């Protein structure tokens, strides 16, 4: 589904990634672990096409096609979703309206009929239950006045609504208390199936107790220094990153 080949790149002229290779097949969950500054966010921003991030060498393929020239929205419409580390506040824009616009952009792109307000509300009410969110959040502006945990749940709500093929969870566990973490993990686990893939980016092993990855990659200085199964995360937790340097 996602193939990263010998990727070098960075931001503002600074090279941060130094030759990343990664292959994610349908149904797989990969976790990338690394300290601050190791290049985790740079990688997710390059995959999603954020302005300002440069690729100097290598390629990123999605379902066999190079996506480096694609606009961020084209990548999103193709099925790449990112749960933001810091979800953005959009004052004045109603959460329902935002989600409906996003879903309809996707449906339109797929040649499907756009949902009207009634159809959308029916759908979203089901999804709200899955992340244990109060319907009153629909009436608030996007992430405006949301607590850290509410913002992350809102991200997962968007994921469940937009049904991406590949979901990147960028530090989704940060700022979550244990109850919210469980709710988010439950949402992700229910969404998992043999066609959907995940790339979980995290600092700590904590989240991986609830979301079990198939593969774990340790990122240091823009390079994967070790890859392995879920047990690698536990080992890392025990020994620290220094062990691999």
């Amino acid at each position, binding site marked *: 589904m996602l193939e990263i080949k010998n990727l070098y790149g960075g931001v503002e002229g600074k090279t941060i990634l130094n030759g990343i290779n990664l292959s994610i097949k349908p149904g797989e969950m990969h976790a990338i672990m690394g300290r601050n500054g190791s290049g985790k966010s740079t990688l997710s921003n390059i995959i*999603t*096409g*954020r*302005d*300002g991030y440069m690729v100097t060498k290598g390629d990123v393929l999605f379902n066999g096609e190079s996506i480096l020239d694609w*606009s*961020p*929205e084209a990548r*999103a*419409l193709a099925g790449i*979703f*990112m749960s*933001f580390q810091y*979800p*953005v506040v*959009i*004052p*004045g*824009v*109603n959460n329902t*309206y*935002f989600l409906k*616009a*996003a879903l309809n*952009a*996707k449906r339109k*792109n797929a040649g499907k009929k756009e949902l009207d307000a009634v159809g959308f509300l029916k759908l979203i009410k089901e999804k709200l239950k899955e992340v244990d969110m109060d319907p009153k959040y629909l009436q608030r*502006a996007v992430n405006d006045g949301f607590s850290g945990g509410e913002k992350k749940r809102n991200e997962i709500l*968007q994921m469940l609504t*937009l049904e991406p093929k590949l979901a990147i969870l960028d530090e989704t566990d940060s700022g979550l208390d244990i109850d919210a973490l469980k709710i988010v993990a439950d949402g992700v686990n229910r969404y998992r199936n043999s066609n959907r893939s995940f790339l979980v980016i995290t600092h700590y092993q904590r989240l991986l107790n609830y979301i079990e990855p198939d593969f774990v990659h340790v990122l240091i200085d823009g390079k994967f220094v070790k890859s392995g199964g879920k047990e690698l995360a536990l080992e890392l937790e025990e020994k620290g990153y220094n062990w691999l340097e």
Partner: protein
Amino acid sequence: MSNEQKIIDDNLKKDYEYGFVTDIESETLPPGLNENVIRIISAKKEEPEWLLNWRLKAYRHWLKMEEPKWSKVVYPEIDFQAISYFSAPKKKELASLDEVDPDLLATYTKLGIPLEEQKMLSGVAVDAVFDSVSIATTFKEELKKAGVIFGSFSDAVKNYPELIQKYLGSVVPYTDNYYAALNSAVFTDGSFVYIPKGVRCPMELSTYFRINEANTGQFERTLIIADEGSYVSYLEGCTAPQRDENQLHAAVVELVAHKDATIKYSTVQNWYPGHPKTGTGGIYNFVTKRGICLEENSRISWTQVETGSAVTWKYPSCILKGDNSVGEFYSVAVTNNFQQADTGTKMIHLGKNTKSTIISKGISAGKGQQTYRGEVKIMKGAENARNFSQCDSILIGNQCGAHTFPYIDVRNPSAKMEHEATTSNIGEDQLFYCNQRGISSDDAVSMIVNGFCKDVFKELPMEFAVEATKLMEVSLEGSVG
């Protein structure tokens, strides 16, 4: 390419979509301004002696005045002798739409405002002002039944001279300011509305203004009088054809609300903003709009959506003279490319328990420069006056500007004043967030801007709100990369 540079570059791509000129033979005076020109205008309009004298007094006063320089707008000096002060389509006084020049009707169709369709579908009476002379007035009969007078200013001068003489210049005297004085001297036409005692006007009254004649300054004069216990909602909307020379527009609008009367005045203004790449050729809009809440419990509400013109200088204001009277100002102004706007309001509290509300939303993109300038004045006798002001600005890109000058002058200690102001920008992070959810940058901007403006849009009549939303999309299309 940096995001900011992309924003600017894409900004420069959008052409004005209503750029066309209708070719209709016009009877036009040669450029120039002197007492003789004023006498000709007055004579062509078969005006009474007192009105000619009023015009001449205004002209003589104007000669002694200086063009105001205190606003933040910058524009080349206007040569008032290079302007033609009268232009009228040759056919006049038509009984029905069938007699209207087909070219003219086609122009309205291009603008998406076919008169006949409007008559049938929307129930909106239209007093169409094409250049300076009203050509077709619809729904006159139905309004007549209700006792409402709605028509061209020139007709009103002929048919209701006593009303004109009583109210003309009573809210905006010709001595008020430079452009009001000029307008008083040379105004050619406009609209007149009178709502009699206790009448709720049965429909929204709507006038579409349109500037069409090259080098013809437009000097509209609008006067609306709401008598005791009456209600009227008036809509004004404009588009203009593309043009190279700058076009001056200096209108005067006067509103008078008597006891228990309400006037709602809504404007959607979309005049040619100038060439998107150079800023040349746009309309200069120097307007004086003022209403007086003359007696108790009266209410005047201004709502404006300003997306056009190269230069806008406009402060729709309320004088709250009657006790318990209410003044409101809701404004959305957009400056894109090279547009400049210096706009706001004045609320002058004279009566007891008077209340005013100001909600101003400014949007700047490209190299647009925008200023909110507002004054709230609580006079000595205005016991328990209240004001709430909110001035928000949003910036798109890093080459535009937003400035806020709120003046507050309180001379009665019982006054309660609230002022809130915010400036924000549509950040790269917000756009990326929307993009990552599959929403294009244009759609994201229009979504964010509409959210920002909704407190004002909800004050507009339904059909205008839809139009305003569309207009915002067109005005800001391509303003981000």
